[in-house]
């Protein structure tokens, strides 16, 4: 638990630094109050001052930019809230339930939104993303001709974007791989099945090795599809908090460390 909290604190610090410019006046005030309270408050060791300061910084961005902050900003708020709460109640079983339910709810909500999206269910969303080269970027170079096709689709898209929409122009994409439409439909359903399986496993058997292997597989699968390092690192920290076996913890730590490095170097998304 200590290692997971430490990694969460490292991620939170990097995230706060990267977002320092937003609403900075309020953040400076909160950080000053935090520093002053550390020096002036005699019971300072009883309270997690750093966590409380960074939590307040998160809440400031959430208040002012509720509809524009990243999705993992919400996850950060909930996870940090659970860790601060743990600092006071010191009950591992309660922190476990907090994190388990957070994971289940977030993944289940994602499944529900996918099921309710005709664009996702039809495969049209993945079709657009693949033909624009937004998915599997690292692997596209090995597919013969794919880079040229993506560039040509980009040119078509740019010319359409410049045109007056009232002209009713339509562009025809060239597919990066044959039978892309069918592949996208299968991929859409596989995504839903995988997320549903992980959410169910976490709900019913959160400590089982296979549950964590499924979660790890999902995290790695998403990272291969797109470098969503911020959110995946948080999911892996949740996994680390829930896992009991050494080798699972090791895998989670490798994923988290890799994601943190990618975020810090700005290669990944924060």
């Amino acid at each position, binding site marked *: 638990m200590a290692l997971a909290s430490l990694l969460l604190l490292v991620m939170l610090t990097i995230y706060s630094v990267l977002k320092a410019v937003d609403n900075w006046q309020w953040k400076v005030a909160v950080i000053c109050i935090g520093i002053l309270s550390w020096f002036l408050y005699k019971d300072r060791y009883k309270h997690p001052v750093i966590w409380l300061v960074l939590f307040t910084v998160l809440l400031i961005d959430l208040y002012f930019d*509720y*509809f*524009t*902050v*990243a*999705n*993992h900003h*919400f996850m950060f708020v*909930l996870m940090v*809230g*659970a860790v601060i*709460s743990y600092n006071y*109640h010191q*009950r591992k079983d*309660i922190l476990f*339930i*907090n994190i388990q*339910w*957070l994971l289940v*709810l*977030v993944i289940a*909500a*994602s499944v*529900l*939104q*996918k099921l*309710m*999206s005709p*664009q*996702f269910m*039809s*495969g*049209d*969303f993945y*079709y*657009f*993303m693949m033909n624009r080269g937004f998915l599997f970027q690292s692997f596209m170079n090995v597919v013969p001709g794919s880079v040229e096709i993506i560039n040509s689709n980009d040119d078509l*898209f740019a010319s*359409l*974007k410049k045109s*007056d*929409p*009232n002209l*009713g*122009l*339509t*562009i*025809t*994409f*060239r*597919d990066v791989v044959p039978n*892309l*439409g069918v592949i*996208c439909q299968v991929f859409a359903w596989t995504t839903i099945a995988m997320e549903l399986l992980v959410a169910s496993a976490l709900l019913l058997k959160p400590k089982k090795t296979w549950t964590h292997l499924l979660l790890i597989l999902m995290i790695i699968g998403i990272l291969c599809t*797109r470098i969503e390092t911020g959110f995946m690192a948080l999911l892996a920290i949740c996994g680390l908090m829930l896992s009991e076996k050494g080798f699972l913890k090791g895998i989670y730590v490798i994923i988290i460390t890799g994601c943190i490095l990618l975020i810090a170097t700005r290669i990944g998304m924060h």
Partner: protein
Amino acid sequence: MPNPFRERLLKFGIPGLAVILIAIQFYNAHTQNLSKWKGGGYGMYTELHYIYNQVHIVNVSVDSLQKHNPSIKKAIHKVKLMPNRTNLQEAGEHILKITNKDSIHIQLWKPQVRFKQQSYTRVLMDELFLKATDF
């Protein structure tokens, strides 16, 4: 003896907060047209990103307006993020006020992808004809 209410609050307080946040996002996404990518992002990668929504003003360069006026840029961003009649009206009125025009014809276009036709196009979602004398 542990207090049962405190126990429940500690166990389900944080997940309960998550449920509230998810409910707010679902409500806004399905009634106010909030992009599923935002407000918690529980629907990221379920539809095209909201940057592909397009605000078009007939005979006016929106890019140029946005470039020279941050408040217009903010208003247009809001329309793209939550494309509904209220936000379109607000943005249109704001643009009319800032540019001192007599009238504008503002349109909201959404992207449409069809893999069966291998096509991408834009479809008109809403439009407004606003006159400076209307308000």
